[in-house]
């Protein structure tokens, strides 16, 4: 069975690449199928008994009141910071793959300084916000 699991077959790099992502695609489908199948089984089994209050939103047993759907600015701020820093993190990866010293064919100190400057710029931003007290909750 392990022999089955291992595909030691010479193929072109591109084919192999597509095949890897084919498995990803299969997994997307598989997860959907699993969800669907289980819900399907449930659909055949489960009872349905409408009761007058069953479909009311649960709110600790009292009537749901007032408006719904508004939120806090702070969450937004964090999301905002996340977007920016996420982009930063994404750019770190290509460097990380080439972080070797120049002798080994990597970017060496040159790349290091570059990424250092890049990170430093954003950390400076973070430090600025921190100092300004914008990271505080209240």
């Amino acid at each position, binding site marked *: 069975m392990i022999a089955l699991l291992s595909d030691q077959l010479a193929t072109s790099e591109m084919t192999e690449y597509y095949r890897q992502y084919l498995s990803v695609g299969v997994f997307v489908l598989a997860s959907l199928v699993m969800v669907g199948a289980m819900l399907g089984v449930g659909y055949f089994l489960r009872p349905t008994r409408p009761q007058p209050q069953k479909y009311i939103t649960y709110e600790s047993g009292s009537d749901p009141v007032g408006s719904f759907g508004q939120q806090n600015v702070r969450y937004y701020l964090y999301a*905002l910071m996340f*977007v920016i820093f996420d982009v930063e993190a*994404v750019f770190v990866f290509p460097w990380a793959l080439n972080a070797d010293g120049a002798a080994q064919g990597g970017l060496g100190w040159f790349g290091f300084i570059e990424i250092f400057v890049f990170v430093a710029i954003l950390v400076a931003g973070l430090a600025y916000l921190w100092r300004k007290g914008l990271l505080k909750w209240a």
Partner: protein
Amino acid sequence: MMLNQFLLLSAFLFGTGIYGVITRKHTVLVLASIELMLVAVNINLVAFGATLNNAVGQVFALFVLAIAAAEVGVGLAIVLLIYRNLRSANPDDVNVLKG
């Protein structure tokens, strides 16, 4: 694969984006439409890069992505500011600057 199928797709997305920018009344939706256009641009870039068989397109797409992220951040911050001051998210309402 033909290159032009990607180009057509991107043209379609771009057009949809333009339609959205023109017709949408909610600022957030306008921003979403702009995102559509940026995706179209990225598909173009990457498709060209793939045709050239190198990473240049991808690198540019990465830069576009970074800038798009910054754009959304600032854009939504502005929306928030407008919303806070005008209680509306309709770009047409923002005419306080007009004398």
